[in-house]
């Protein structure tokens, strides 16, 4: 006898209880603390903050713990939390030229004011599994140098002074907020940058990579990559001046792109820009390449039909919270639609065999 699909509520509660147990894993193994995740899985925390659009390492670490290490699920948790927060106002644009850098490199100049600072990077490590880590060995302290006192000016500012790179003058216009206004196309560069900055790292990486392989090539050099802390300042109307309300770590990448000129623009270098929360170097570089590829129209370049040049394609598919939700929704029941398709296919088959018989 048929029993309807009942008891949904109990099934859900039990499934969630089981999930909680699985999340904890073997009780004989010590539980991870949020602080451990924050300190020892910092790059995962950074990714969750960047794509969750919320700078809060503790909450990001908590989300990673709750999500059992599924970073897209953690990003989703942060996004869902973020929307419940009141929007008190907008900060001043952060001054990345005044960043306290922990890493700063330029691929275009051998040496430059402020110097090349490698910082804590995987670059030049040999990717050999370090079995000492499995034995929980203590880490020797790294040597320290005195803090940089000299200013670390942007490489772009130097090129800008010589008129070699397309200027991007500062403006007073208040950009739209992607989280408060629906995306309308064509989107301004400010909106595009917001979407790419919170977009899925894997998607942005692949888009950027495709431009390097010739699908919308932009001839990019990393003019500068810098990682460090910047002050966040807010204008307080009652005081009449800006007050520093905190500090965030960001990664900024500016590319210098070869540009032979077009019908509308003289030959000069052009820019791609990437800015992402935390130490998220791969994402920031990829972002600057995708940004530059999307600028073909304003620079009067040809559209080669490459995916990375297609703003609608890139912007509508970059968000992993949207993508994963829609992808996974196909596991929800669809028996009503499927039933209607079943009947249609049966009818089409019946019609076809009837006309085949008639023909015989």
């Amino acid at each position: 006898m048929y029993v309807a699909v009942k008891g949904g509520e109990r099934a859900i509660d039990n499934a969630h209880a089981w999930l909680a147990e699985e999340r904890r894993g073997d009780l004989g193994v010590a539980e991870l603390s949020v602080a451990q995740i924050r300190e020892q899985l910092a790059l995962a925390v950074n990714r969750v903050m960047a794509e969750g659009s919320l700078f809060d390492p503790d909450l990001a670490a908590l989300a990673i713990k709750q999500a059992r290490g599924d970073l897209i699920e953690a990003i989703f948790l942060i996004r869902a939390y973020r929307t419940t927060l009141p929007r008190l106002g907008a900060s001043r644009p952060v001054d990345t030229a005044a960043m306290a850098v922990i890493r700063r490199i330029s691929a275009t100049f051998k040496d430059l004011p402020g110097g090349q600072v490698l910082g804590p990077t995987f670059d030049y490590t040999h990717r050999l599994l370090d079995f000492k880590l499995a034995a929980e060995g203590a880490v020797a302290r790294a040597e320290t140098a005195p803090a940089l006192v000299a200013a670390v000016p942007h490489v772009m500012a130097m090129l800008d002074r010589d008129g070699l790179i397309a200027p991007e003058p500062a403006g007073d216009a208040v950009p739209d907020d992607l989280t408060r206004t629906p995306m309308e196309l064509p989107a301004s560069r400010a909106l595009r940058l917001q979407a790419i900055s919170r977009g899925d790292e894997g998607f942005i990486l692949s888009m950027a990579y495709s431009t390097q392989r010739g699908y919308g090539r932009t001839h990019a050099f990393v003019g500068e990559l810098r990682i460090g802390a910047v002050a966040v300042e807010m204008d307080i109307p009652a005081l009449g001046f800006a007050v520093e309300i905190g500090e965030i770590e960001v990664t900024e990448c500016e590319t210098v792109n070869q540009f032979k000129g077009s019908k509308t623009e003289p030959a000069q270098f052009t820019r791609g820009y990437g800015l992402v929360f935390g130490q998220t170097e791969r994402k920031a570089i990829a972002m600057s390449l995708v940004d530059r590829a999307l600028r073909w129209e304003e620079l009067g370049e040809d559209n080669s039909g490459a995916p990375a040049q297609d703003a609608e394609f890139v912007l509508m598919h970059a968000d992993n919270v949207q993508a994963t939700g829609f992808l996974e929704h196909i596991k929800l029941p669809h028996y009503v639609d499927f039933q209607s398709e079943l009947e249609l296919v049966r009818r089409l088959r019946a019609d076809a065999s009837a006309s085949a018989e008639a023909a015989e």
Partner: protein
Amino acid sequence: MTLHADPVAAESYNFAYLDEQTKRMIRRAILKAVAVPGYQVPFASREMPMPYGWGTGGVQVTAACLTPDDRLKVIDQGADDTTNAVSIRKFFQRTAGVAVTEATAEATVIQTRHRIPETPLTSGQILVYQVPIPEPLRFLEPRETETRKMHELEEYGLIHVKLYEDIARHGTIATSYAYPVKVEGRYVMDPSPIPKFDNPKLSGSPALQLFGAGREQRIYALPPFSHVVSLDFDDHPFEATKAPHDCDLCGADDSYLDEVITDDQGSRMFVCSDTDFCRTRQAEGQLGVLGAPVLKGGV
């Protein structure tokens, strides 16, 4: 059902979860949608605590419509007890503390996925649809910039060509759900993936019908008594189809049926997809071939 106002949730979140600013923004979009029936109004959809594609648009519209006095019904595939319907109903019980019901006639707000209830809706009711892809032209033209232009210019030739090609190839229009409609002689609209069996119920309904697409950031509406026509041709008129059976539990011959496989030998039965409708009929003593009195009043 009883109220389960979760004190933790009640303390930390606003009534019906969304803050009042957001609700106001959504209500503005709804008003615009009601003023221009069938037109897709962009709105700044928020991340909800359930995934995109799982009814976030409907949930946001419901949240913006709910008042503490409302009585909410949530269905998925016509059923009140499918897991996602249970989850959404629970969400509003926790965050709004509203009364809930499974009876179509008793509900003031009904959130649905993929069905229109069999019991005719009445004046004052709001039916909220969850919409995955709001654009009826999307699978003919993937670009939003293009499809918006097509709506502006009332350029709907492409969709008629598609229906015509169906007839040329299959002898019939091969769209069985999410069957496109024209609203008040102007906008072509996607009725969400309801079976085309439900399409006639869209037109002339005394209830307000609201459609929310969260991921795609669109809201659209059919105000009460809107004239809604399913697209067709004079020589191939629209036909609302269902499985050619009666419900095996309640005997109804006019309700949309789910096909249930009962063993691995090809046996199957047909039951109403609208669980409230089916249960009400059984309680009234109307039984189908396999309907046993023991099932009265539900499980």
